């Protein structure tokens, strides 16, 4: 990749800007695509050329799996831009990496054979990781791999958006992110060109949230070495003559789990379990579509967070109030066994679990045109409430 970067700089005087949107598969695809399309149209307003594309290998997108969409902008002809940046699976580097759901800062694993990759992997020197989050850049950097060069983490205050599901639940996250982008990287697109494009393609009522995004984004410089040592090892794929002929791969043995694809980077919330109030009914164990629950010797059900995608089915079926509760994934650092912690010190575990539940993350069924949840909106102001 570094060699490619070197070659890239040899290309005449072409300045190519790459942007990626990390999004939750299916749920945020329309959102990501809309952002990238608008960037290309806005670049055109500035007399630049551009195109956009998704990471094709993300298909088939499984619900919530980390996926990517890209926009490429340059001050050159279409022919030259496509020669330099077309025909790619994904860019070698990005100037801005948008993260549409902050839980992805814990790492992204689209396929088992891609490995759990750092969210800032593609961010170039001086580039920006732009995250939609209710947390500060400093809180987020504790999840992100340290880099050898300086870059920035920017936060657009807000909740994870579902304005990209099959029905477009409009919460203005698209234009708010674009406004933030214009602030942190006007070299990709300026606020003025975005304003024109948004008015033209989306409607004048989206100018206010565009400006709001521009004004509310918070940027923090990240020094070399700031962040964590990445705990995951990237898989090394075999050479053509190093694996079985006939496309035969080793399967998971009966009762086992896939060591090579744990899938937990799909998770935005995890079930927190109160073992002390559990009635051992086994509904969580029975209902879990990913078979994440293991019965313990004393008849309780431990959960293996490595394989939990956070679907929430266990919390839904649990008949005891407050015994299985879904909690924001960013409130946790590891995937260790909760049952082991419970056995170690029951009182401390219950206290810890209740504390975690304090600040929960909710997928609101209704959102409004202002990006506020419905119960935050005055009764008379529900004209834009989506369904």
């Amino acid at each position: 990749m570094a060699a490619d970067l070197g070659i890239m700089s040899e290309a005449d005087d072409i300045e190519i800007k790459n942007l990626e949107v990390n999004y939750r598969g299916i749920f945020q695809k329309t959102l990501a695509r809309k952002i990238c399309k608008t960037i290309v149209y806005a670049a055109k307003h500035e007399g630049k050329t551009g195109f956009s594309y998704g990471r094709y290998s993300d298909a088939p997108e499984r619900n919530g799996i980390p996926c990517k969409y890209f926009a490429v902008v340059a001050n050159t002809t279409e022919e030259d831009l496509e020669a330099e940046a077309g025909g790619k699976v994904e860019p070698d580097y990005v100037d801005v990496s948008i993260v549409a759901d902050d839980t992805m800062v814990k790492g992204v694993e689209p396929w088992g054979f891609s490995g759990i990759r750092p969210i800032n992997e593609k961010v170039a020197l001086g580039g920006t990781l732009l995250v939609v989050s209710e947390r500060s850049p400093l809180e987020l950097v504790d999840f992100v791999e340290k880099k050898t060069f300086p870059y920035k983490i920017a936060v657009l205050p807000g909740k994870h958006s579902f304005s990209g599901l099959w029905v477009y639940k409009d919460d203005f996250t698209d234009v708010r992110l674009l406004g933030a982008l214009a602030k942190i990287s006007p070299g990709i697109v300026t606020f003025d060109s975005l304003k024109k494009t948004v008015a033209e393609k989306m409607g004048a009522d989206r100018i206010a949230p565009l400006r709001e995004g521009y004004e509310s984004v918070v940027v923090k410089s990240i020094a070399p070495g700031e962040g964590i040592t990445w705990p995951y090892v990237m898989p090394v794929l075999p050479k053509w003559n190093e694996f079985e002929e006939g496309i035969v791969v080793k399967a998971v043995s009966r009762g086992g789990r896939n060591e090579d694809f744990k899938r937990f980077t799909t998770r935005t919330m995890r079930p927190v379990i109160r073992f002390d109030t559990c009635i051992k009914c086994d509904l969580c164990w029975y209902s879990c579509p990913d078979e994440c629950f293991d019965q313990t010797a004393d008849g309780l059900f431990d959960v293996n967070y490595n394989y939990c995608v956070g679907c929430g089915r266990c919390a839904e079926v649990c008949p005891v109030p407050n015994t299985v509760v879904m909690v924001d994934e960013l409130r946790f650092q590891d995937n260790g066994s909760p049952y082991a912690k419970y056995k170690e010190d029951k009182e401390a575990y219950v206290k810890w679990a209740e504390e975690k539940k304090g600040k929960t993350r909710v997928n609101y069924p209704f959102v409004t045109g202002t990006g506020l949840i419905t119960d935050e909106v005055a009764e008379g102001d529900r004209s834009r409430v989506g369904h």
Partner: protein
Amino acid sequence: MTQVEAAPKAIEREELLTGCEAVAQAVMLADVDVIAAYPIRPYTEVMDAVSKLIADGKFFAEYIIAEGEHSQFEIVKHASSVGARVFAGSSGTGWMYAMEALAVTASDRLPVVAMVGNRALDDPGAFGVEHNDALTVRDLGWLLVWVATAQEALDTALISYRVAEDQSVMFPLAIALDGGFLTHSQHIVKIPSAAQVRRFLPPYALGKRRLHPDNPISIAPQVNEDWVMEIRKQNAEATKKVPAVVDKAYKEFEEVFQRSVGDPWLEEYMMEDAELAIVGMGTLAITAKAAIKRMRKQGVKVGLVRQKWYRPYPTERVRKALSGVRAVAVVDRDFSYGSPFYGGVLYNEIRSALYSLSSRPIITNFIAGLGGREISIAEIMKMLELTEKAKREDNRDQVMWMGVRE
């Protein structure tokens, strides 16, 4: 077609479209009557785009969801025989599943226009581009054209109806788009007006071959050895008439739409003084331009030949383009297990086309980019360097795999 009317100033609009969405626009503008669909990625994208245009009331067509690709292509074949302009398409093994219908459509000389979103043939499961799927119909009478940009996809789709439905042609035609890199990548595309398209594309007319109660005919009865040779000969001779129709269609396209679409058969890039050439089809040729620019800066005289039409094969054009160079690198985004020199499909076709020349370049072959693997600028440069080396060493039959883990 009659004399082309003087075209008024082009009224076009621009939109950011995927390659598939661009083809869907052409399907709408061509006012297609019957569409049969069955989903398989990456073709699905065009099926979605067309159905959305219909649902949005932009045009009307019978849109039939078949229960599989075989039926899908039977439906459009039959619709075509009663006088409907049709559109269908598929990818990878879906295209293979339709094979029986594909073969008879060509024999029956019905101008079905299809889009193939090139996809790796299962197994293993993969959605990325390989050209093997579309290439399976190369011997059957299907006309085949590879496009490399979304604009070219739209333009070529319009031209395809014009060519396929020409009275002297009447062959089915497949437009091949690289899966992912073109089918799913969004570019600014110029969309012509319906009025312009009407001037370019006459209505579909089958004449005496139209299946209708008032015109009692029977299509494709059992004939045995008494007839087959003559039928094949008739079709073989008809393919020879295609190039002139293609040339005329491109020329008139430029007149009506008032913009250049380039040479129909080959795109030549920096070939004027080239000593070394790289040849390929589809999007990989776009990346090759960046490699060529870098090597030109280093003083290496390299050029690109992107082959667009594949059937009928532009033999003379290829001979003309490549007879002057010292060495040629042919990049195949396909495989042909056990073929001469274990090379790719395009490689062996080009070698055959150049065989009778008195002065032939050294030709090396690179199998690359299979299953959607990216072919980098650096890899293209490497291919050209290896071809230069083959020339120096007089190594004449070299086939190499590029970008494979070894």
